């Protein structure tokens, strides 16, 4: 399997605090890669660095060999990095129009954009809600708008930031297959999730972060039996990591 995204020594300091320090990893093309870690571990900061909303202090980010490190966010999006946000804040327009926004970067005609947006809404099963305002939708549906908007940028790599958080078990069961479906359509996925069951069920490999550093990487089984990971979550006296 070849590497789609290669991150090397990525570091971000906020004042004296290293929110992300010396993080290196690869995302393989076509995989679902989970990213877990306790609160404040630097997961969302890492997403902000990859999508370009934050500038890194050092290190490099390469997508298919192209260096993204110095690119503004909109160019990274054009290169194929899509993302969702942990806190869903849909634009104040209809569901369909929300999805049309990114499509308008490729298609200038509103009619074409509408058609494309509708196709994506069908994929996330929101086609019946196309003309509704996002505020009238459930959280689970609003999270799917986020996914639909990100898909509309035609990403090669999709960064999903807690698309399952805050959903009840039946909604999780409803949204979970969507992640697999998106991957099967040819999009590589890196996703942050706190729901362990969901994470373990769906990801092929898992990265674990703690206090800004990457402390483990492997299959779900390997990671859950890793002593450092257990320590990070449960706070036992640390053996040598």
């Amino acid at each position: 399997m070849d590497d789609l995204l290669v991150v090397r020594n990525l570091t971000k300091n906020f004042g004296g605090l290293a929110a992300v320090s010396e993080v290196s990893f690869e995302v393989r093309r076509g995989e679902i890669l989970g990213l877990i870690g306790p609160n404040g571990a630097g997961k969302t900061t890492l997403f902000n660095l990859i999508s370009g909303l934050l500038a890194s202090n050092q290190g490099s980010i390469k997508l298919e060999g192209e260096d993204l490190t110095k690119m503004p966010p909109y160019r990274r999006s054009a290169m194929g990095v899509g993302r969702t946000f942990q806190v869903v804040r849909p634009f104040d327009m209809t569901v369909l129009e929300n999805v049309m926004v990114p499509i308008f970067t490729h298609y200038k005609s509103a009619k074409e954009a509408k058609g494309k947006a509708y196709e994506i809404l069908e994929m996330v099963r929101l086609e019946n809600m196309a003309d509704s305002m996002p505020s009238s939708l459930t959280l689970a549906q609003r999270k799917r708008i986020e996914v639909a908007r990100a898909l509309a940028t035609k990403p090669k790599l999709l960064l999903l930031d807690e698309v399952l958080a805050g959903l009840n078990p039946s909604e999780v069961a409803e949204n979970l297959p969507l992640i697999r479906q998106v991957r099967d359509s040819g999009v590589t996925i890196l996703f942050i999730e706190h729901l362990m069951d969901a994470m373990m069920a769906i990801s092929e490999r898992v990265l674990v972060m703690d206090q800004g550093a990457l402390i483990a990487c492997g299959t779900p089984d390997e990671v859950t039996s890793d002593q450092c990971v257990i320590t990070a979550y449960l706070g036992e006296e640390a053996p040598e990591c």
Partner: protein
Amino acid sequence: MRTNKIIVAAAILALGLLAVPLYFTSTFILHMFTLVFFYIALTAAWNIPAFGGKFSLGHAAFFGLGAYAASILYVKYGISPLIGIFAGTVCAMLGGVILSFPLIRLKGPFFTLASIAFAEVLRMVAIDWRSMTNGSVGLNIPFKPGWLNLTFTSGMPFYYIALGLAVLVILLAWWIRSSALGYHLRAAAADEDAAKALGINTAKSHFFALMWSSGLTGMIAVFYVFYNYVLEPGTAFSMDLFSLQPAMNGIIGGMGTVWGPVIGAIIMTPLGEFLRFYLGTIQQGLNFVVYGLMLIAVVNFVPGGIVSLMAPWFKKKKSGESSARDN
């Protein structure tokens, strides 16, 4: 059916507006209408950056640049204002370019403050650059009637010119809002980071919005000066008349919408004249007290502006709204 009704209503309104000068020969009424049209156009132009959440209090800068460009060309060099229209538009857009570099990345109140400073600096320049602008004395447009000089013996031509400007700017604003640029601006206004992550070059969108807005403001200013014959720095770069008033109209009518500026200008222009006339004579500045109170009331009770109160009349029935949950 619905669209037919709208077309009929629009046609009746258009005919009515076209007929006004034929039935109302009073110069006061004609002047009032003309002023309302000018302010609809100015407010609608001011409102374009507001699609993207940028709140300017410096549009007097673009107004003054457009007004001075055409007037200097005419008064000093004898060049027809018909050419001055283009010169005024371009000069105002250049002002927009200058303003965009430092400001387009500033957010919220910082953009607004910097826009005020920009207009004030230009006013100072207009006062001090006497060889070009005649300083505080200002420039007088000589009365030589004729289309080439944009000077007329009656108020009627300017009534139609102002009406045409208002319609033009409304149509442009509507077109921009429903185009890719409009969607990108609205996305940026709602959530700048999300818009960037979705591949939108938000700085570029704000820049284009400012170009449209500044250019149109400069163009309107050229006509306004030739309607008024006089031009001096205090008026051309007037914060009250061309920065605050359009912003005021926009907030009260409904910022970031197509029809908000229209409603705002229709209500505020006659009201402003009335207040200036009656309250301004009792105690100077009293009219602004009323403005302030209105602003507080609207921002507190109808934050979406008057257009948001009227929205239910216009909105089509939303199909999917009733069933909030899907399958």
